[in-house]
């Protein structure tokens, strides 16, 4: 069902976002703890980076139907 696709995409987006955010947060915490004397900026940086990556992924995922992929181009 084509109408379910968007929902699926959003699910992926959210899941991806959550993962990336979590991962970023973890990494940030790690880095902040390890390398950056428990400053918060690496946490926010890494979580933000994670969020950004998730955002970008989501956008790409959502755009994917409009972009001509290489396989399609070759076809």
């Amino acid at each position, binding site marked *: 069902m084509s109408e379910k*696709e968007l929902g699926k995409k959003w699910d992926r987006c959210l899941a991806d976002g959550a993962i990336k955010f979590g991962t970023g947060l973890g990494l940030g915490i790690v880095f902040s703890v390890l390398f950056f004397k428990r400053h918060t900026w690496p946490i926010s940086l890494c979580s933000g980076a994670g969020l950004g990556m998730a955002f970008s992924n989501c*956008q790409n995922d*959502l755009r994917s139907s409009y972009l001509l992929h290489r396989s399609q181009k070759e076809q």
Partner: protein
Amino acid sequence: YTAGGSSGAAKVVAAGLLTVGGGVGGTILYAKWDHKFRAAVENNVPYSDWLLGLALGPAYQGDIMKQVRMDSQHVWVIIADSVVAPHTELPLRERPVEEVAARLAQQDQKEQDTLSSVSASLEECLASSAKATLQAIGAQEAAVQAITQHIHKLKEAMEAEVPPPEKSSQWKDLEAALADRTSAVNDAETALLKAKEALDSLKSEIDKSKGLKVSAVRPLVLAAEENLHNMVVDLDRVVTKLQSAESESKIVSQYSDLVNEAKLQFQREVSSLTPEIQANWKGLTGKLSADDLNALIAHAHRRIDQLNRELAEQRVREQIHIDASLEQQKLEDQKALEKAVLTAVQHIKEDTRLEQERKLSELREVMEAEMRTQLRRQAAAHTDHVQDVLKVQEQELRADAEQVLGSKLLEQETSYRQLSQEQLDNFTLDMNTAYARLKGMEEAIDSHVVAEEEARKAHQLWLSVEALNYSLKMADADSPTMPLESAAQAVRDSCHDNDFALALATALPEESLQRGVYSEASLRARFNALRALVRRVALVDETHNSLYQYFLSYLQAALLFEAKQEAPPGQLCSEDLDPFRLLSYASFCLEHGDLELAAKLVNQLRGEARRVVEDWLTEARLTLETRQVVSLLSAYANAVGLGTTQAP
């Protein structure tokens, strides 16, 4: 000033009213006089007809026309009269033979009647007049006899010397005779008058009968006239006899008178001489003396002298008297002669007239006989001519009749032939029609059989299509129907000889056959679910598809409110291509069961919204397609079924 102004205004108003009233009145009067003007006014000025009608009464409709019509009627009447008048003359028509004969018979009858009446009357008159005449004649004769007797007696009395007693008896006889004579004469006169009357009546009768102008009466008339003439003649004769006898008697009476007078004179003289002497001088003897006798003788002598003188005188006068009397007699004779001549002339005239009449009647008879013979000859000639003409006519008529007969026979022959031919033709026609009908019936029966076969097949087809339809309808809410393959197969089986149905049956989409189709309700429900999603991604399309756009789109969906359902217009304009609008239109259509239009409208979505509804659209398309095919098939089956089904 105001007063003046008002008076001026009043003046103006009054003048205006006067003008208007004058104009209207003048118009009405002129309209009354001139009808054309009235008509023109009525045509051009509204409500003028009402006004003029009120004032003058209704207009004369075609007054002029009426006049013309009346004049023409007069003319026509005149013409009609002059034409009709000649026709009123009765045409002269020939009287028919029967009428003529009847008239002749009538005339004859009338003649006979008149004849008989006239003859009867004439006879009567004749008889009466004859009787009267005879009577008159007898009376006259008697009178003559009486006169002669009287004269004789008188003469006797005068001259006879008879003794006195006898004398007195004689005188008595004489008187008796005189009385007889007078009576006889009177009788004769009355008889004569009667006879004359009778004769006059007879004459009038004769004249009347002569006036009738009937030929057969003439001989009778002639005879009567002759009789009359004879009677008149006899009567006249007798009258003359009487007259002569009378004249004689007169003479004798005169003589007797004279004698009586002389006697009386003498007696008077004697008596004067001798007064004592008695009257009768004959008885004087013996009584007289000598003186008396001497005186008497002297007287006698004197008397004798006187008488002699008188005689001489008389002798002298005699001649004169005789001459005078002769003259008188001559005159009387002349008169009598004249009278006799007149009567004789009259008698002769009568005779000649009667003779003439007789001759005329004879001549007439002769002429009539001749005329009869001529007429007979003419009649004979006429009959001959008529016979000839009749013969000729007969010939002609025979020829005509034969011709007519020949033509009629020919006609009859031809008509008979025509009739027989007609009969034959009719018979052949009937035979042909019967044969054709038989053929038609056979064909009908065959076609009937064929039609029944067709009907059966159509029925089958219809049943299968109905099954397909039913299976199409039997869909659960969210799951598709059962695969239509079997039903389609059934349809295909039931119409394997019908290209149209076969084509349709094969036109069913594969998906519907394999998988089945969704019902409209499920599609509707799905759409309702879809709608929210489409609203949310309304702004996302090929160029605008970043997450920010997604955010904006979601914001728009949250903030924008559109009508839940809106009736779509007939033609979409550029504003209607807004997704929200489209959604409301499609929703409306779906709610009203118009899946097709909804699909069309949804098809207008672009971008992400379009991607989202893609599946729904295909499903809708599928359903629509299947439904279309099935409806076509059903319609076709219905049509075929109707075509082949026979009404009870």
